[in-house]
């Protein structure tokens, strides 16, 4: 009965839905109980918070549920085990901060705020961490343009990177609308997660 299983059972009453993919266990919790869940994990033996990061599922194929997901990557040094506690939220929802549990979480939460625009209320100093002050918008959102500038040649010729790459994968068509001809990139039929 490893530490992770014990924690998963502990989190079940809080509405925790465990999932496993390639021996990595993640528990999805709704945002009301997230601080309680992380506190239980810390007392259960996960001494170290390794990372907090966000994922934007805007154009993830066949994605149901909310748009953003914030994952807490907790690691237990004594039991040498790792668990991901995840929260699914939508645009504009606010998550409670966990800087009172670990001071190390302040930069991590500020980075999620900077890159995704997800506020953490109760955070001592929530401001932009990495992107320049005059950059409005959150770069890691899927609807934020990558900002590619076409490569210019001297007789007015140019290569538009998106179109050039769309030949590879058939994703966005880019300026020239070239969809990559018959070699469109296909997506393997989605094998549903466990």
């Amino acid at each position, binding site marked *: 009965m490893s530490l992770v299983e014990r924690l998963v059972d502990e989190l079940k009453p809080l509405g925790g839905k465990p999932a496993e*993919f*390639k021996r*990595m266990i*993640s528990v999805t919790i709704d945002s009301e109980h997230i601080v309680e869940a992380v506190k239980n994990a810390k007392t259960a033996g996960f*001494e*170290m*918070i*390794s*990372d907090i*990061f966000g*994922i*934007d599922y805007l154009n*993830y*194929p066949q994605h149901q549920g909310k748009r953003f997901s914030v*994952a807490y*990557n907790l*690691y237990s*040094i004594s039991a*040498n085990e*790792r668990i*991901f506690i995840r929260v699914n939220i939508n645009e504009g929802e606010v998550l409670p901060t966990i800087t009172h549990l*670990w*001071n*190390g*979480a*302040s*930069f*991590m939460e500020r*980075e999620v705020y900077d890159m995704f625009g997800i506020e953490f209320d109760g955070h001592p100093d929530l401001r*932009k*961490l*990495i*992107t*320049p002050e005059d950059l409005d918008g959150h*770069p*890691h959102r899927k609807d*934020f343009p*990558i900002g590619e500038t076409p490569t210019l040649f001297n007789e007015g010729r140019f290569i538009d990177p998106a179109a050039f*790459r769309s*030949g*590879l*994968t058939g*994703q966005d068509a880019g300026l020239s609308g070239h969809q990559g001809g018959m*070699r469109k*990139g*296909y*997506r*393997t039929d*989605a*094998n549903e*997660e466990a």
Partner: protein
Amino acid sequence: MTVKKPSDFGAEVTAEQVMTQPGVTVTDMPSASEFETKLMRLNVGPQHPSTHGVLRVVVDLDGETVKRIVPQIGYLHTGFEKTMEHRTYQQGVTYSNRMDYLHGFGHDLAYVLSVEKLLDANVPVRAQQVRVILNELNRIASHLVFFGTGILDMGALTLFFYTMREREQILDLFEMVCGVRMNYGYFRVGGLSRDIPEGFTDAVRQFITGFPKMVDQYVGLFAKNDIFVNRTKGVGVLSRETALDYGLTGPSLRASGVGLDFRKAQPYSGYENYDFDVPTSDKGDVHARFMMRIEELAESLKIIEQALDALEPGPVKDPDRRISLPPRQELETSMEAVIFHFKLATEGFHPPRGEVYVPTESARGELGYYLVSDGGSMPYRVKVRVPSLINLQSLEPACIDGVFADMVANIASLDPVMGDVDK
């Protein structure tokens, strides 16, 4: 009889108002300390010799003691994760080693391991051993830059030239293998791009035999120098609890008494069959952080030696055609090889949907690539757990109430690499 302080008078207070309060003699005036002393805000900006790279630290100084320290980062933000979402998996290898440009092989290895876990690719033993050798050599080179610039910040210039001389030898070894001194594109998902040249193993052996004497030279140069000892012993102490509280990882955490090394805890790429021990010390000050890396050099040499002895000829690529390119001569003969080659070259492989994370130990701490794949040929989301960004936070507990000169020693001992921090 309450004596009014200047701040009680409102904005425009004149000396007479304060001094000529009725019935108040000079002796019972509030003592000087009650007059609030303004802290001096100092900007140790992005272009500064002692911040390693473009780190900006805003420091509130009361005289020489640091009262408040706020690192401002982002001056080297390159948008790696956003850009890697628009590159195929194989192209991602060129991006990963430019994040922490001192330990490029560590990042390459972490990225490639994550993708291989996603694909369930089986990497041949020889490829794993070569990866371990190159990773450890790069760790030594990264520590050499750490010593060179760390001691340079404290004022000693000579060690910089000694450590760079050894680093040149290591870069020659890398140049022999992958043709480049830095930013190597040598690892591939599923193995290596080419096999190592024949002269490589005995060149590495020759380097290993000569290197311990050089380490004694470094130790002789700075470890016993009592200016260094006085400036670093007992300075910027991080106890075990504050280190864990601030998410410190890597040699700096091991200097605070927590023996966490992911090469030992969760071995990857064949680390489980080399025996090396993880040096720890419980003092947690700048001196201990420097000494951790000196002892780590010896451990890395041990690993390289064992990996070299265990090296035997064999394939260096995953035989599965859907992942690695078929060999050249096979293209002339078999049609499938041409189709596979065409598929891989234009589009790359399509890993199954899912999310994966493999923690590894880079020269600065825990490093891992969290890949989210949507079945397409490009990663949907790449999140790099970088050690330097989170180690930089423990600059605050280390520097508060310390002297300003110790802040420079603390920055040097935490060894942030700005490409790693700002990714």
